[in-house]
Protein backbone atom coordinates (compact mmCIF):
# COMPACT_ATOMS: atom_id res chain seq x y z
CA UNK A 1 0.00 0.00 0.00
CA UNK A 2 1.33 3.39 -0.91
CA UNK A 3 2.15 5.53 2.09
CA UNK A 4 2.22 9.14 0.94
CA UNK A 5 4.85 11.52 2.30
CA UNK A 6 3.42 14.94 3.08
CA UNK A 7 5.22 18.22 3.50
CA UNK A 8 3.70 20.07 6.42
CA UNK A 9 6.01 23.02 7.16
CA UNK A 10 8.67 25.03 5.34
CA UNK A 11 10.88 28.03 6.04
CA UNK A 12 13.94 29.65 4.48
CA UNK A 13 16.69 32.21 4.95
CA UNK A 14 18.44 33.25 1.73
CA UNK A 15 20.13 36.17 0.03
CA UNK A 16 16.69 37.75 -0.14
CA UNK A 17 16.50 37.83 3.64
CA UNK A 18 14.74 36.02 6.45
CA UNK A 19 11.53 34.22 5.46
CA UNK A 20 10.59 32.28 2.37
CA UNK A 21 8.08 34.80 1.01
CA UNK A 22 10.79 37.30 0.03
CA UNK A 23 12.72 34.53 -1.72
CA UNK A 24 9.72 33.30 -3.67
CA UNK A 25 8.74 36.85 -4.68
CA UNK A 26 12.33 37.46 -5.79
CA UNK A 27 12.40 34.30 -7.87
CA UNK A 28 9.13 35.17 -9.61
CA UNK A 29 10.27 38.76 -10.17
CA UNK A 30 13.38 37.43 -11.91
CA UNK A 31 15.60 39.54 -9.63
CA UNK A 32 18.85 38.13 -8.33
CA UNK A 33 20.03 38.62 -4.75
CA UNK A 34 23.75 39.04 -5.52
CA UNK A 35 25.78 41.72 -3.82
CA UNK A 36 29.45 42.51 -3.24
CA UNK A 37 30.93 40.54 -0.37
CA UNK A 38 32.21 42.58 2.55
CA UNK A 39 32.81 39.84 5.15
CA UNK A 40 36.30 39.02 3.79
CA UNK A 41 38.61 40.40 1.06
CA UNK A 42 37.93 39.06 -2.43
CA UNK A 43 40.34 40.96 -4.69
CA UNK A 44 42.58 37.92 -5.07
CA UNK A 45 39.78 35.68 -6.32
CA UNK A 46 38.77 37.54 -9.49
CA UNK A 47 35.17 37.62 -8.34
CA UNK A 48 33.42 39.44 -5.53
CA UNK A 49 29.72 38.59 -5.67
CA UNK A 50 27.59 36.34 -3.50
CA UNK A 51 23.94 36.08 -2.50
CA UNK A 52 24.60 36.97 1.11
CA UNK A 53 21.85 37.49 3.67
CA UNK A 54 21.21 41.25 3.53
CA UNK A 55 22.06 43.41 6.56
CA UNK A 56 23.08 40.41 8.61
CA UNK A 57 26.12 39.73 10.75
CA UNK A 58 26.21 37.44 13.77
CA UNK A 59 26.44 39.17 17.14
CA UNK A 60 29.88 39.09 18.79
CA UNK A 61 30.69 35.70 20.17
CA UNK A 62 28.20 33.87 17.98
CA UNK A 63 29.06 31.82 14.95
CA UNK A 64 27.54 32.83 11.62
CA UNK A 65 24.85 30.20 11.48
CA UNK A 66 23.74 29.97 15.13
CA UNK A 67 21.34 32.96 15.02
CA UNK A 68 20.07 31.88 11.59
CA UNK A 69 19.25 28.40 12.86
CA UNK A 70 17.63 29.91 15.97
CA UNK A 71 15.41 32.00 13.70
CA UNK A 72 14.35 28.86 11.84
CA UNK A 73 13.69 26.97 15.08
CA UNK A 74 11.53 29.87 16.25
CA UNK A 75 9.30 29.61 13.18
CA UNK A 76 8.60 25.95 13.83
CA UNK A 77 5.13 25.86 15.31
CA UNK A 78 3.75 22.65 13.85
CA UNK A 79 6.49 20.04 13.93
CA UNK A 80 5.33 16.79 15.52
CA UNK A 81 7.37 15.78 18.55
CA UNK A 82 8.00 12.34 17.12
CA UNK A 83 9.75 13.79 14.06
CA UNK A 84 13.28 12.45 13.55
CA UNK A 85 15.94 15.12 13.04
CA UNK A 86 17.73 15.11 9.67
CA UNK A 87 20.47 17.65 9.09
CA UNK A 88 22.28 18.48 5.85
CA UNK A 89 25.58 20.38 5.60
CA UNK A 90 28.75 20.20 3.54
CA UNK A 91 31.71 21.68 5.38
CA UNK A 92 30.17 23.52 8.30
CA UNK A 93 31.61 26.73 9.71
CA UNK A 94 35.15 25.85 8.72
CA UNK A 95 36.61 29.33 8.42
CA UNK A 96 37.03 29.62 12.17
CA UNK A 97 40.15 27.44 11.88
CA UNK A 98 42.72 30.12 12.68
CA UNK A 99 42.66 28.53 16.10
CA UNK A 100 43.58 24.97 15.17
CA UNK A 101 42.08 23.71 18.42
CA UNK A 102 38.66 24.54 17.05
CA UNK A 103 36.73 21.76 15.43
CA UNK A 104 34.38 23.39 12.95
CA UNK A 105 33.09 20.52 10.89
CA UNK A 106 29.68 19.61 9.52
CA UNK A 107 29.50 17.31 12.55
CA UNK A 108 30.00 20.10 15.08
CA UNK A 109 27.39 22.18 13.27
CA UNK A 110 25.05 19.19 13.49
CA UNK A 111 25.57 19.01 17.27
CA UNK A 112 24.89 22.73 17.54
CA UNK A 113 21.69 22.30 15.52
CA UNK A 114 20.48 19.51 17.76
CA UNK A 115 20.70 21.88 20.72
CA UNK A 116 19.02 24.73 18.86
CA UNK A 117 16.14 22.51 17.68
CA UNK A 118 15.97 20.79 21.08
CA UNK A 119 16.55 17.31 19.74
CA UNK A 120 18.57 14.60 21.45
CA UNK A 121 19.60 12.69 18.35
CA UNK A 122 19.36 12.56 14.61
CA UNK A 123 21.37 11.96 11.46
CA UNK A 124 23.69 14.31 9.60
CA UNK A 125 23.79 13.81 5.83
CA UNK A 126 26.68 15.23 3.87
CA UNK A 127 26.72 14.54 0.15
CA UNK A 128 28.43 17.64 -1.19
CA UNK A 129 26.00 19.92 -3.05
CA UNK A 130 23.38 17.15 -3.09
CA UNK A 131 23.23 17.06 0.72
CA UNK A 132 19.73 18.42 1.25
CA UNK A 133 18.13 16.39 -1.53
CA UNK A 134 19.82 13.32 -0.06
CA UNK A 135 18.52 14.15 3.43
CA UNK A 136 15.01 14.80 2.08
CA UNK A 137 15.08 11.60 0.02
CA UNK A 138 16.27 9.49 2.95
CA UNK A 139 13.64 11.01 5.24
CA UNK A 140 10.90 10.44 2.68
CA UNK A 141 12.01 6.85 2.13
CA UNK A 142 11.96 6.09 5.87
CA UNK A 143 8.47 7.59 6.18
CA UNK A 144 7.10 5.76 3.15
CA UNK A 145 8.42 2.46 4.46
CA UNK A 146 7.00 3.23 7.91
CA UNK A 147 10.36 3.26 9.66
CA UNK A 148 9.70 6.73 11.08
CA UNK A 149 6.45 8.74 11.37
CA UNK A 150 7.86 12.16 10.48
CA UNK A 151 11.07 14.07 9.89
CA UNK A 152 12.32 17.58 10.52
CA UNK A 153 14.89 18.24 7.78
CA UNK A 154 17.20 21.22 8.29
CA UNK A 155 19.90 22.30 5.85
CA UNK A 156 22.37 25.16 5.87
CA UNK A 157 25.62 26.49 4.48
CA UNK A 158 27.02 29.97 4.06
CA UNK A 159 29.54 31.97 2.11
CA UNK A 160 32.71 31.67 4.16
CA UNK A 161 36.22 32.58 3.13
CA UNK A 162 37.01 28.86 3.34
CA UNK A 163 34.39 27.91 0.79
CA UNK A 164 34.82 30.99 -1.40
CA UNK A 165 38.58 30.45 -1.73
CA UNK A 166 37.99 26.77 -2.43
CA UNK A 167 35.58 27.29 -5.29
CA UNK A 168 37.86 30.04 -6.65
CA UNK A 169 40.75 27.55 -6.61
CA UNK A 170 38.69 25.29 -8.86
CA UNK A 171 38.03 28.17 -11.29
CA UNK A 172 34.33 27.54 -10.80
CA UNK A 173 33.23 31.09 -9.98
CA UNK A 174 31.77 33.75 -12.22
CA UNK A 175 32.93 37.38 -12.10
CA UNK A 176 29.40 38.44 -13.02
CA UNK A 177 25.92 37.33 -11.91
CA UNK A 178 25.55 33.61 -12.62
CA UNK A 179 23.65 32.72 -15.77
CA UNK A 180 22.51 29.12 -15.56
CA UNK A 181 21.83 27.46 -18.90
CA UNK A 182 23.01 30.51 -20.82
CA UNK A 183 25.26 30.13 -23.85
CA UNK A 184 27.75 32.54 -22.29
CA UNK A 185 27.61 31.35 -18.68
CA UNK A 186 30.86 31.85 -16.80
CA UNK A 187 30.46 29.95 -13.58
CA UNK A 188 28.63 29.94 -10.27
CA UNK A 189 27.96 32.53 -7.59
CA UNK A 190 27.80 31.30 -4.01
CA UNK A 191 24.97 32.11 -1.61
CA UNK A 192 23.98 31.86 2.06
CA UNK A 193 21.03 29.66 2.86
CA UNK A 194 19.37 27.82 5.67
CA UNK A 195 15.99 26.22 5.67
CA UNK A 196 13.74 23.52 6.95
CA UNK A 197 11.00 21.21 5.78
CA UNK A 198 8.84 18.93 7.88
CA UNK A 199 7.79 15.65 6.27
CA UNK A 200 5.13 13.40 7.73
CA UNK A 201 3.12 10.27 7.04
CA UNK A 202 -0.62 10.48 6.44
CA UNK A 203 -1.28 9.07 9.92
CA UNK A 204 0.93 11.74 11.49
CA UNK A 205 -0.78 14.49 9.51
CA UNK A 206 -4.17 13.31 10.71
CA UNK A 207 -3.04 12.76 14.31
CA UNK A 208 -1.75 16.32 14.67
CA UNK A 209 -4.07 18.00 12.13
CA UNK A 210 -1.02 19.30 10.30
CA UNK A 211 -1.34 21.61 7.29
CA UNK A 212 -0.35 20.02 3.97
CA UNK A 213 1.81 22.02 1.56
CA UNK A 214 2.51 19.23 -0.91
CA UNK A 215 3.93 15.75 -1.19
CA UNK A 216 7.25 14.08 -1.92
CA UNK A 217 6.23 11.61 -4.58
CA UNK A 218 9.55 9.99 -5.41
CA UNK A 219 13.32 10.16 -5.15
CA UNK A 220 16.44 8.78 -6.72
CA UNK A 221 20.07 8.88 -5.64
CA UNK A 222 22.93 7.73 -7.88
CA UNK A 223 26.67 8.21 -8.24
CA UNK A 224 28.57 8.88 -11.48
CA UNK A 225 31.66 7.01 -10.24
CA UNK A 226 33.76 8.86 -12.79
CA UNK A 227 35.53 11.90 -11.32
CA UNK A 228 35.66 13.66 -7.99
CA UNK A 229 34.98 17.17 -9.33
CA UNK A 230 33.76 16.82 -12.91
CA UNK A 231 30.31 15.42 -13.69
CA UNK A 232 29.67 12.86 -16.39
CA UNK A 233 28.76 15.33 -19.13
CA UNK A 234 26.64 12.64 -20.79
CA UNK A 235 24.41 12.84 -17.71
CA UNK A 236 23.85 9.06 -17.59
CA UNK A 237 23.57 8.63 -13.83
CA UNK A 238 21.60 11.87 -13.47
CA UNK A 239 19.14 10.56 -16.05
CA UNK A 240 18.94 7.31 -14.07
CA UNK A 241 18.28 9.22 -10.83
CA UNK A 242 15.50 11.16 -12.58
CA UNK A 243 13.87 7.95 -13.81
CA UNK A 244 14.10 6.34 -10.37
CA UNK A 245 12.48 9.42 -8.80
CA UNK A 246 9.68 9.40 -11.38
CA UNK A 247 8.87 5.76 -10.68
CA UNK A 248 5.99 4.76 -12.94
CA UNK A 249 5.27 8.34 -14.01
CA UNK A 250 5.64 9.18 -17.70
CA UNK A 251 7.59 12.21 -18.95
CA UNK A 252 4.25 13.84 -19.79
CA UNK A 253 3.28 13.79 -16.10
CA UNK A 254 6.06 16.23 -15.19
CA UNK A 255 5.36 19.96 -15.36
CA UNK A 256 8.79 21.32 -14.47
CA UNK A 257 12.37 20.36 -13.76
CA UNK A 258 14.10 22.61 -11.22
CA UNK A 259 17.64 21.79 -12.20
CA UNK A 260 20.78 22.09 -10.11
CA UNK A 261 21.82 24.68 -12.73
CA UNK A 262 24.93 26.16 -11.15
CA UNK A 263 25.96 28.14 -14.20
CA UNK A 264 29.20 26.24 -14.70
CA UNK A 265 29.98 24.89 -18.14
CA UNK A 266 30.09 21.22 -17.22
CA UNK A 267 27.23 21.00 -14.69
CA UNK A 268 24.75 22.70 -16.98
CA UNK A 269 25.87 20.65 -19.98
CA UNK A 270 25.39 17.46 -17.97
CA UNK A 271 21.88 18.43 -16.89
CA UNK A 272 20.84 19.52 -20.38
CA UNK A 273 21.89 16.09 -21.68
CA UNK A 274 20.19 14.21 -18.84
CA UNK A 275 16.91 16.14 -19.13
CA UNK A 276 16.80 15.84 -22.91
CA UNK A 277 17.44 12.09 -22.56
CA UNK A 278 14.51 11.56 -20.19
CA UNK A 279 12.28 14.18 -21.84
CA UNK A 280 12.85 13.89 -25.61
CA UNK A 281 9.75 16.01 -26.20
CA UNK A 282 11.11 18.72 -23.90
CA UNK A 283 9.96 19.93 -20.49
CA UNK A 284 10.11 23.35 -18.80
CA UNK A 285 13.34 23.69 -16.83
CA UNK A 286 14.66 26.41 -14.54
CA UNK A 287 17.40 26.98 -11.95
CA UNK A 288 17.17 28.98 -8.74
CA UNK A 289 20.92 29.66 -8.75
CA UNK A 290 20.76 32.64 -11.07
CA UNK A 291 18.86 34.31 -8.23
CA UNK A 292 19.91 32.88 -4.84
CA UNK A 293 23.29 31.57 -5.92
CA UNK A 294 24.72 28.18 -5.21
CA UNK A 295 23.90 27.54 -1.58
CA UNK A 296 25.57 24.11 -1.36
CA UNK A 297 23.72 22.02 1.22
CA UNK A 298 20.87 24.52 1.12
CA UNK A 299 20.31 24.13 -2.61
CA UNK A 300 17.89 21.22 -2.62
CA UNK A 301 15.86 22.64 0.20
CA UNK A 302 15.39 25.97 -1.61
CA UNK A 303 14.42 24.07 -4.75
CA UNK A 304 11.87 21.96 -2.89
CA UNK A 305 10.25 25.07 -1.41
CA UNK A 306 10.36 26.74 -4.84
CA UNK A 307 8.61 23.66 -6.24
CA UNK A 308 5.84 24.01 -3.65
CA UNK A 309 5.45 27.68 -4.63
CA UNK A 310 5.29 26.77 -8.33
CA UNK A 311 2.60 24.19 -7.57
CA UNK A 312 0.68 26.73 -5.49
CA UNK A 313 0.86 29.55 -8.04
CA UNK A 314 0.42 27.31 -11.08
CA UNK A 315 3.25 29.21 -12.71
CA UNK A 316 6.98 28.78 -13.31
CA UNK A 317 9.37 31.52 -12.25
CA UNK A 318 11.62 32.93 -15.00
CA UNK A 319 15.24 31.93 -15.47
CA UNK A 320 17.08 34.84 -13.90
CA UNK A 321 19.90 36.38 -15.97
CA UNK A 322 19.15 34.28 -19.05
CA UNK A 323 20.13 35.97 -22.31
CA UNK A 324 20.77 33.25 -24.89
CA UNK A 325 19.91 29.64 -24.03
CA UNK A 326 22.77 27.16 -24.27
CA UNK A 327 22.67 24.56 -27.04
CA UNK A 328 20.12 21.91 -26.14
CA UNK A 329 18.38 24.18 -23.62
CA UNK A 330 16.45 26.28 -26.13
CA UNK A 331 13.23 24.31 -25.61
CA UNK A 332 13.73 23.99 -21.87
CA UNK A 333 14.44 27.41 -20.32
CA UNK A 334 12.79 30.81 -20.57
CA UNK A 335 13.27 34.25 -19.09
CA UNK A 336 9.51 34.65 -18.78
CA UNK A 337 6.93 33.38 -16.32
CA UNK A 338 5.32 30.28 -17.80
CA UNK A 339 2.17 28.37 -16.81
CA UNK A 340 2.65 25.07 -15.01
CA UNK A 341 0.78 22.43 -16.99
CA UNK A 342 1.29 19.35 -14.81
CA UNK A 343 1.21 19.03 -11.05
CA UNK A 344 4.55 17.31 -10.56
CA UNK A 345 7.95 19.00 -10.28
CA UNK A 346 11.38 17.38 -10.30
CA UNK A 347 14.21 18.92 -8.27
CA UNK A 348 17.76 17.95 -9.22
CA UNK A 349 21.00 18.20 -7.24
CA UNK A 350 24.47 17.22 -8.40
CA UNK A 351 27.55 17.36 -6.20
CA UNK A 352 31.28 16.78 -6.18
CA UNK A 353 32.09 13.11 -6.21
CA UNK A 354 29.34 12.59 -8.77
CA UNK A 355 26.49 12.53 -6.23
CA UNK A 356 23.14 12.91 -8.00
CA UNK A 357 19.95 13.26 -5.98
CA UNK A 358 16.50 13.90 -7.43
CA UNK A 359 13.14 14.51 -5.76
CA UNK A 360 9.69 14.47 -7.32
CA UNK A 361 7.35 16.92 -5.59
CA UNK A 362 3.61 16.90 -6.10
CA UNK A 363 0.63 18.94 -5.09
CA UNK A 364 -1.29 17.48 -2.21
CA UNK A 365 -4.04 16.09 -4.45
CA UNK A 366 -1.76 14.25 -6.89
Amino acid at each position, binding site marked *: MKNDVYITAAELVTGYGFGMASCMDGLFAGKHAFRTITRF*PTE*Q*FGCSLAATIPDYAPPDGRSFLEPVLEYLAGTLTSSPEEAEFFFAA*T*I*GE*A*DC*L*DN*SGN*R*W*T*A*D*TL*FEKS*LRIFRRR*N*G*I*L*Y*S*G*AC*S*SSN*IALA*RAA*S*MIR*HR*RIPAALVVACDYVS*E*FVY*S*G*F*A*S*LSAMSPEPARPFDLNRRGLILGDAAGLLVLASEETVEKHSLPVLGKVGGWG*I*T*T*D*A*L*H*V*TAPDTEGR*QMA*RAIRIAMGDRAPGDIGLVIAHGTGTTFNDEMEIRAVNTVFPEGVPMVSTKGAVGHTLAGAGLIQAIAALEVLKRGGIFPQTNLQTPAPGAERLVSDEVRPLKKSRVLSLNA*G*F*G*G*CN*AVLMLEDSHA
Partner: protein
Amino acid sequence: MPDFHTAGYAKIHEFRAEAPSRRVRIQAENLYDLLDEVLMLDFVPEYDLPKFKRAGERSKMAVIAAILAAADAGMTPLSGKTAVIGAGRDGSHQENLLYWDDYVQNGRSGGRGHLFVGTLPSTPPSETAIALNLHGPSYYIDTLGDPSRIALEIESLFDDPELEAVLLLLNDGSETRAFCLVRGAMAPGDPFLSLPSGEGGS
Protein backbone atom coordinates in the same frame (compact mmCIF):
# COMPACT_ATOMS: atom_id res chain seq x y z
CA MET B 1 18.73 -7.80 15.22
CA PRO B 2 19.08 -5.84 11.98
CA ASP B 3 17.79 -7.39 8.80
CA PHE B 4 21.17 -7.20 7.08
CA HIS B 5 24.51 -8.78 7.81
CA THR B 6 28.20 -8.41 7.19
CA ALA B 7 29.39 -10.46 4.23
CA GLY B 8 32.90 -9.04 4.32
CA TYR B 9 34.90 -6.99 6.81
CA ALA B 10 38.28 -5.30 6.81
CA LYS B 11 40.14 -2.74 8.89
CA ILE B 12 42.87 -0.27 7.99
CA HIS B 13 44.76 1.26 10.89
CA GLU B 14 47.47 3.66 9.77
CA PHE B 15 49.53 1.48 7.39
CA ARG B 16 48.18 -1.89 8.56
CA ALA B 17 45.40 -3.88 6.87
CA GLU B 18 43.40 -6.64 8.51
CA ALA B 19 40.76 -9.05 7.24
CA PRO B 20 40.16 -11.20 10.33
CA SER B 21 38.06 -13.93 8.70
CA ARG B 22 40.86 -14.51 6.17
CA ARG B 23 43.56 -14.28 8.84
CA VAL B 24 45.13 -11.45 6.84
CA ARG B 25 47.30 -8.89 8.61
CA ILE B 26 49.61 -6.77 6.49
CA GLN B 27 51.92 -4.03 7.66
CA ALA B 28 53.44 -1.60 5.13
CA GLU B 29 55.56 1.56 5.10
CA ASN B 30 52.86 3.73 3.57
CA LEU B 31 49.41 3.53 1.99
CA TYR B 32 50.79 3.04 -1.56
CA ASP B 33 52.72 -0.03 -0.46
CA LEU B 34 49.75 -1.22 1.57
CA LEU B 35 47.54 -1.05 -1.53
CA ASP B 36 50.12 -3.01 -3.53
CA GLU B 37 50.30 -5.68 -0.83
CA VAL B 38 46.51 -5.96 -0.64
CA LEU B 39 46.22 -6.27 -4.42
CA MET B 40 48.70 -9.17 -4.34
CA LEU B 41 46.47 -11.27 -2.06
CA ASP B 42 45.14 -14.29 -3.94
CA PHE B 43 41.50 -13.58 -3.09
CA VAL B 44 41.67 -9.93 -4.23
CA PRO B 45 41.03 -9.28 -7.94
CA GLU B 46 42.98 -6.83 -10.08
CA TYR B 47 41.97 -3.18 -9.93
CA ASP B 48 43.03 -0.32 -12.13
CA LEU B 49 43.34 2.66 -9.78
CA PRO B 50 44.97 5.52 -11.70
CA LYS B 51 43.43 8.14 -9.41
CA PHE B 52 44.62 6.63 -6.13
CA LYS B 53 47.62 8.98 -5.89
CA ARG B 54 45.46 12.08 -6.09
CA ALA B 55 43.20 11.09 -3.20
CA GLY B 56 43.71 12.27 0.37
CA GLU B 57 44.79 9.94 3.18
CA ARG B 58 41.27 9.30 4.43
CA SER B 59 40.09 8.46 0.92
CA LYS B 60 43.06 6.13 0.36
CA MET B 61 42.24 4.26 3.57
CA ALA B 62 38.60 4.02 2.50
CA VAL B 63 39.49 2.60 -0.92
CA ILE B 64 41.87 -0.04 0.47
CA ALA B 65 39.42 -1.04 3.20
CA ALA B 66 36.58 -1.31 0.68
CA ILE B 67 38.61 -3.45 -1.72
CA LEU B 68 39.56 -5.81 1.08
CA ALA B 69 36.03 -6.02 2.54
CA ALA B 70 34.49 -6.72 -0.88
CA ALA B 71 37.09 -9.41 -1.54
CA ASP B 72 36.53 -10.87 1.93
CA ALA B 73 32.84 -11.13 0.99
CA GLY B 74 33.76 -12.87 -2.25
CA MET B 75 31.81 -10.12 -4.01
CA THR B 76 34.26 -9.06 -6.68
CA PRO B 77 33.50 -7.17 -8.66
CA LEU B 78 30.82 -5.58 -6.52
CA SER B 79 27.56 -4.88 -8.29
CA GLY B 80 27.21 -1.35 -9.59
CA LYS B 81 24.01 -1.29 -7.53
CA THR B 82 26.00 -0.87 -4.33
CA ALA B 83 25.76 2.11 -1.98
CA VAL B 84 28.85 3.57 -0.30
CA ILE B 85 28.13 5.19 3.04
CA GLY B 86 30.85 6.93 5.02
CA ALA B 87 30.23 7.37 8.73
CA GLY B 88 32.09 9.06 11.54
CA ARG B 89 32.07 11.81 14.10
CA ASP B 90 34.81 13.96 12.71
CA GLY B 91 33.67 15.09 9.26
CA SER B 92 36.93 16.12 7.65
CA HIS B 93 38.61 18.03 10.44
CA GLN B 94 42.16 17.05 9.48
CA GLU B 95 41.48 17.81 5.82
CA ASN B 96 39.96 21.16 6.80
CA LEU B 97 43.14 22.03 8.69
CA LEU B 98 45.29 20.89 5.78
CA TYR B 99 43.44 23.08 3.28
CA TRP B 100 43.13 26.09 5.58
CA ASP B 101 46.72 26.09 6.84
CA ASP B 102 48.00 25.85 3.28
CA TYR B 103 45.71 28.71 2.23
CA VAL B 104 46.83 30.89 5.13
CA GLN B 105 50.52 30.09 4.55
CA ASN B 106 50.04 31.21 0.94
CA GLY B 107 49.01 34.63 2.19
CA ARG B 108 45.31 33.93 1.66
CA SER B 109 45.89 34.53 -2.02
CA GLY B 110 44.37 31.27 -3.18
CA GLY B 111 43.60 27.73 -2.13
CA ARG B 112 44.52 24.44 -3.73
CA GLY B 113 41.65 22.72 -5.45
CA HIS B 114 42.58 19.13 -4.62
CA LEU B 115 42.96 20.00 -0.93
CA PHE B 116 39.60 21.79 -0.96
CA VAL B 117 37.79 18.79 -2.47
CA GLY B 118 39.22 16.65 0.32
CA THR B 119 37.44 18.79 2.91
CA LEU B 120 34.06 17.34 1.95
CA PRO B 121 33.14 14.50 4.32
CA SER B 122 31.57 12.74 1.33
CA THR B 123 34.83 12.60 -0.62
CA PRO B 124 36.07 9.22 0.78
CA PRO B 125 32.84 7.39 -0.14
CA SER B 126 32.82 9.15 -3.51
CA GLU B 127 36.44 8.17 -4.19
CA THR B 128 35.56 4.61 -3.19
CA ALA B 129 32.60 4.59 -5.60
CA ILE B 130 34.91 5.84 -8.35
CA ALA B 131 37.59 3.23 -7.59
CA LEU B 132 35.12 0.32 -7.50
CA ASN B 133 32.72 1.67 -10.17
CA LEU B 134 29.70 1.74 -7.86
CA HIS B 135 26.62 3.69 -8.93
CA GLY B 136 24.36 3.47 -5.88
CA PRO B 137 24.01 6.34 -3.39
CA SER B 138 27.27 7.65 -1.88
CA TYR B 139 27.38 10.08 1.03
CA TYR B 140 28.54 10.60 4.61
CA ILE B 141 26.47 10.33 7.78
CA ASP B 142 27.03 11.19 11.43
CA THR B 143 24.65 9.60 13.95
CA LEU B 144 26.45 10.90 17.06
CA GLY B 145 27.99 7.46 17.29
CA ASP B 146 24.62 5.75 17.69
CA PRO B 147 24.92 2.35 15.95
CA SER B 148 21.13 1.87 16.02
CA ARG B 149 20.78 4.88 13.72
CA ILE B 150 23.49 3.55 11.43
CA ALA B 151 21.49 0.31 11.32
CA LEU B 152 18.32 2.29 10.58
CA GLU B 153 20.08 3.99 7.67
CA ILE B 154 21.35 0.69 6.24
CA GLU B 155 18.02 -1.13 6.64
CA SER B 156 16.25 1.79 5.04
CA LEU B 157 18.66 1.76 2.09
CA PHE B 158 17.78 -1.91 1.56
CA ASP B 159 14.12 -0.90 1.22
CA ASP B 160 15.17 -0.12 -2.35
CA PRO B 161 14.74 -3.52 -4.03
CA GLU B 162 17.35 -2.67 -6.67
CA LEU B 163 20.14 -2.14 -4.16
CA GLU B 164 22.32 -5.24 -3.80
CA ALA B 165 24.94 -4.24 -1.21
CA VAL B 166 26.07 -1.42 1.05
CA LEU B 167 29.71 -0.63 1.75
CA LEU B 168 29.82 1.05 5.15
CA LEU B 169 33.06 2.91 5.82
CA LEU B 170 33.51 3.88 9.45
CA ASN B 171 36.34 6.32 10.01
CA ASP B 172 37.72 7.82 13.17
CA GLY B 173 40.75 9.54 11.68
CA SER B 174 43.48 6.95 12.20
CA GLU B 175 41.34 3.92 11.38
CA THR B 176 38.84 2.94 8.71
CA ARG B 177 36.67 -0.14 9.02
CA ALA B 178 34.80 -1.38 5.97
CA PHE B 179 31.68 -3.54 6.20
CA CYS B 180 30.34 -5.13 3.04
CA LEU B 181 26.67 -5.49 3.98
CA VAL B 182 23.95 -7.52 2.29
CA ARG B 183 20.33 -8.47 3.03
CA GLY B 184 19.57 -11.24 5.50
CA ALA B 185 19.28 -11.63 9.22
CA MET B 186 22.33 -10.76 11.27
CA ALA B 187 23.79 -13.55 13.40
CA PRO B 188 25.50 -13.22 16.78
CA GLY B 189 29.18 -12.43 16.32
CA ASP B 190 28.63 -10.27 13.25
CA PRO B 191 31.36 -7.57 13.20
CA PHE B 192 28.67 -4.89 12.95
CA LEU B 193 27.46 -5.84 16.43
CA SER B 194 30.85 -4.98 17.85
CA LEU B 195 30.07 -1.28 17.43
CA PRO B 196 29.38 0.03 20.91
CA SER B 197 27.38 3.17 21.55
CA GLY B 198 29.62 6.13 20.85
CA GLU B 199 31.37 4.16 18.11
CA GLY B 200 32.19 5.64 14.78
CA GLY B 201 34.49 8.44 15.69
CA SER B 202 36.74 10.22 18.05
